[in-house]
């Protein structure tokens, strides 16, 4: 039996960390993720968990500390947002290429400038090619569930990659909502004890990590990293199946909402998916066959699943909560379109940028997107350029 609670997204994640009880938590505060290490350090101070908390002077150092401790054989975590994630950029690649399954909740926040503390996905989207597995949550429940699964996915012997689990800053991190948490023992059993096969502090099997790699080997190592990401696909499914058996909550790479007969669909990530579901219910009530595809796992990118889910729609809108400055929208727009092209789907697609820097995304904002899609179907004209939603002109 799950325990019914009401928690903010940050509280939920902190409780997941408490239940996972990692060996090491290294962190530097940054809004809106600060509460996560704050709560965890309280649990430690109260003697509820025996995690070693390492206060550091920057996010470059928090990730460096995690890399060091995970390499030594310790399960390590941190949490960050926005500029903190940007400051880790160099070390994100080191963590991934050293094949260190660090887990990191990211509370999405716009990158400066202008300086802004509210949600968008520019921070984690900037790190999408760093070699980390990326999962996104719609609400506190998913933020909690994703983190617990992330530990097992990253540590899977065929994967060995770090995982970031993202949720929208303030929108879910600071909103108190209903949630079902698991018993401590269940989470403990689910994640199990971390036993690295190879690690620096091994008594006999000595090794070095992070030495110079010549051109003769570098490419092979990068290929192995890519194979790890490929293997993550099965690990994500297997872990989700085990998680469903334990919790009753099912997860997949993507979530489909009213897609069976949808003529018009949007592809979306994060908290606005919930708002969009309410908008879709309104549209359905008015006779519009609307649906949505929510991407839960962004890396590895579920190309086939997205293409299949969209196979029957007339027009799709792809929703980016980050600019790409490509002159043609954000990263999701580009990748989803590529997925459709690669799978031979000739579906009209419109790319949107929305919700930057915490611009509130309302039910009406999503309806405006669908209005655009319906117009495309009527006129047959697909806008050559991407569209902004909720922009004051």
């Amino acid at each position: 039996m799950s325990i019914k609670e009401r928690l903010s997204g940050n509280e939920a994640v902190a409780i997941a960390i408490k239940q996972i009880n990692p060996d090491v938590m290294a962190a530097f505060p940054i809004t809106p993720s600060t509460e996560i290490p704050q709560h965890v350090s309280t649990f430690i101070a109260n003697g509820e968990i025996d995690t070693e908390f390492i206060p550091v002077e920057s996010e470059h150092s928090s990730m460096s500390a995690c890399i060091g401790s995970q390499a030594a054989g310790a399960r390590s975590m941190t949490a960050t947002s926005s500029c903190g994630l940007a400051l880790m950029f160099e070390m994100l690649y080191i963590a991934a290429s050293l094949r260190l399954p660090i887990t990191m909740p990211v509370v999405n926040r716009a990158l400066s400038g202008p300086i802004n503390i509210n949600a968008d996905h520019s921070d984690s989207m900037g790190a999408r090619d760093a070699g980390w597995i990326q999962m996104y949550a719609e609400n506190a429940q998913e933020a909690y569930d994703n983190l617990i699964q992330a530990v097992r996915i990253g540590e899977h012997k065929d994967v060995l990659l770090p995982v970031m689990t993202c949720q929208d800053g303030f929108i879910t991190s600071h909103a108190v909502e209903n949630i079902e948490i698991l018993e401590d023992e269940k989470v403990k059993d689910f994640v199990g004890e971390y036993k690295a096969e190879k690690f620096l502090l091994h008594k006999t099997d000595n090794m070095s990590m992070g030495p110079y790699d010549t051109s003769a080997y570098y490419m092979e190592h990068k290929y192995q990293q890519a194979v790890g990401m490929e293997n993550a696909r099965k690990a994500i499914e297997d872990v989700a199946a085990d998680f469903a058996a334990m919790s009753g909550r099912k997860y997949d790479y993507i979530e489909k909402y009213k897609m069976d007969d949808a003529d018009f669909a949007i592809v979306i990530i994060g908290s606005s998916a919930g708002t969009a579901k309410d908008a879709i219910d309104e549209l359905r009530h008015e006779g519009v066959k609307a649906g949505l595809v929510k991407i839960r796992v962004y890396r590895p990118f579920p190309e086939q699943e997205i293409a299949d889910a969209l196979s029957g729609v007339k027009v799709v809108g792809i929703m980016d909560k980050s600019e790409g400055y490509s002159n043609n929208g954000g990263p999701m727009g580009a990748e989803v379109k590529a997925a459709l092209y690669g799978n031979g789907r000739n579906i009209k697609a419109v790319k949107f940028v929305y919700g930057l820097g915490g611009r509130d995304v309302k039910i009406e904002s999503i309806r405006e997107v669908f209005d655009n899609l319906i117009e495309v179907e009527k006129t047959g004209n697909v806008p050559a350029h991407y569209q902004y939603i909720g922009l004051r002109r």
Partner: protein
Amino acid sequence: MNERIEIRWHGRGGQGAKTASLLLADVAFSQGLYVQGFPEYGPERMGAPITAYTRLSSAPIRVHSNIYEPDYVVVMDETLVGPVDVTAGLSKDGAIVINSSKDPSELAALISDYAGRVYTVDAASISMQTIGRNIPNTPLLAAVVKVSGAMDETIFIENMRHSFEHKFADKPEVIEGNLKALKMAMEEVHLYER
């Protein structure tokens, strides 16, 4: 109750609007409702106008946007009535509750375009009398529960007692005062008669 009740809180930084929005969500959760409580975040400063929101529902809540068409509005500081459009989008079938010692007619005059019910409650005075400090959010919480009928009043008081016993475990002497503040606010919330 209705399927969903949406409440918007207007206060000034430091007055506890966020706390009130979360407290109401908390107590509604104890009664088995689905809840959402969240403030609007920005560059907060003491005294600057801030907004917070509470959604209460008999069904799971999926929407993640601010509340634009609230059923109820609570104003923690009467000086916000005027400078802030506190009745924006407010349902005419709902009500506004303003923390003020003034005659309700004075405040109603400032929001004369609002056709719904206007209530005042002197939360500052109630809080001074019962708690000994100006903490308006506790009486305002009771006032909005009373006005909205969002939950059973007796169960509300009981749940608040549990919450206070937990919150003030190390200073039990303030529990009775807080409970008294709730009950007084329920009795002393005044409807403006047009």
